[in-house]
């Protein structure tokens, strides 16, 4: 995956959260981003997607600079974003949510084809006319991810897919992510608080600490290396 982040500083107003994030190594089909609270994981996703403007540094995607671009321009370049919470339009139907996911698609037939594809993939075909807010927590998460796939992106930035979900639903969501991976070209960069979960599910993991990337490597690194285990898994 061709995402390069070079010495990015970013935050909220005068509060700097990212203090020189450098991420130019490999990204897998599913890449995890772990770290303690306040390390800057969600801030990094928001900065990549253009919600936050970096004060310093550069972000490149497929060799094109996307620093300071708007979310719409970044979507057009093949990156979509799924927020941690409340990312749906709860009073609209499942289908309307997906139509909105494909808002940039002007071709009506292509839009309908994409909606059908996502409805099938997410097992929500029978619920297309149901209000999104009436779905279960796991289904809502699947719908959010499905909406993020409407433009057939190269990369989905996924903020804590397991947040506020029961363990069974977490499995359901991650199985879907793997299924999407197997069926298409889309890669995922996933922020996850549940470190053990992401080490099981990701191909590659980056660990953040105090606004910088402290380590990047395959999940086995984190399981083997005593220092990393201590730092990020809280185990000696």
């Amino acid at each position: 995956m061709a995402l390069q982040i070079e010495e990015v500083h970013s935050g909220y107003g005068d509060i700097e959260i990212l203090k020189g994030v450098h991420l130019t190594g490999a990204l897998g089909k599913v890449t995890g981003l772990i770290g303690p609270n306040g390390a800057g994981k969600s801030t990094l996703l928001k900065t990549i997607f253009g919600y936050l403007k970096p004060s310093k540094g550069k972000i490149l995607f497929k060799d094109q600079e996307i620093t300071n671009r708007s979310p719409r321009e970044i979507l057009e370049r093949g990156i979509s974003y799924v927020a941690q919470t409340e990312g749906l339009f709860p009073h609209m139907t499942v289908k309307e949510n997906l139509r909105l996911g494909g808002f940039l698609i002007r071709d009506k037939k292509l839009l309908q084809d994409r909606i059908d594809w996502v409805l099938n993939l997410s097992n929500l075909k029978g619920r297309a006319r149901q209000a999104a807010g009436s779905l279960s927590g796991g289904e809502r998460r699947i719908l959010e991810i499905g909406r993020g796939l409407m433009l057939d992106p190269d990369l989905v930035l996924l903020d804590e897919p397991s947040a506020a979900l029961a363990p069974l639903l977490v499995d359901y969501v991650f199985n879907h992510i793997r299924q999407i991976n197997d069926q298409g070209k889309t890669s995922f960069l996933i922020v996850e608080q549940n470190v053990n979960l992401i080490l099981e599910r990701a191909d590659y993991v980056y660990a953040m600490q105090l606004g910088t990337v402290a380590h990047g490597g395959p999940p086995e690194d984190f399981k083997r290396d005593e220092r990393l285990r201590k730092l990020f898994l809280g185990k000696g």
Partner: protein
Amino acid sequence: MDNAFLSSLLTALVLGIIISGIYALFAVGLSLLFGVMDIVNVAHGELFTIGAYLAFIGIVLLLLHPLLALVGVIVGSLAIGFGAYFLTIRPLHHRLGRRPKAPVYLVLTLGLSIFLQNIVLAMAGGNFKVIPSYISGTTNFLNLVFVSRYRVFIFLISMAVVMGLFLFLKYTRTGLAIRAVKENSAAAQAVGIKVDQIYLITFGLVGVLAGLSGALLTPIYRVFPTVGAILTIKAFAIIVLGGMGNLVGALIGSFVIGISESIAVMFISTDWKDLVAFAIMIVILIIRPSGIMKGE
């Protein structure tokens, strides 16, 4: 029940339904703006007033055909709505880098309201202006109710515009985007909707709805610089009753208030008519604070 009373009751009901149409046209815009941008627009009545004066200019001063004058009102009100957004809301958003909290909008639109009232006063003077009704004659329902054709005309136009707005919001791409921003502006941005553009379109739409209601009502009421301010307060009662930000609620609220007022004046003095709306609003706030249709 004697025939005279039945006739009075039916007349009150029909007149109530007719005035509800105008209330709906006016209040739906106020509710839409609140739903999309969290703006309690105190200057909504001034958009109504400007629409009324534009109709006066078109029909009385320029002697245009009334329908042509109404087209002029729509274009002028759209421009006023866009102007209000570009000159007040947009600079505020850019300065802050985000949307401010609702009280900031309240003070801003209050200032805009006073500013527009004074501009109108300076340009048109404080005298009442009158537009003669351009549709004459009465319509007879069941030989019991006699209503002027003009009132039926404004009801039909108002309802057609409100229904058109609902269909536009439900079935068009821009309508879908407006509803998306109304529900969740951050998520709307994440799917590629230009939220600033939606705010602009909403302001334009709201300007047209308020301006058109002012233009339609002028042949019934006289026009003066603060005419819209009175209606704004009533529209607040309507949207609180229906549920703030809920458009169907605003429509229902308009009919509840319009019909209640009309029937109430059979039993109380017309001087007390305006109290009916606020009495209903207070009761609803106590027993169901989110309004009939659950607003925000």
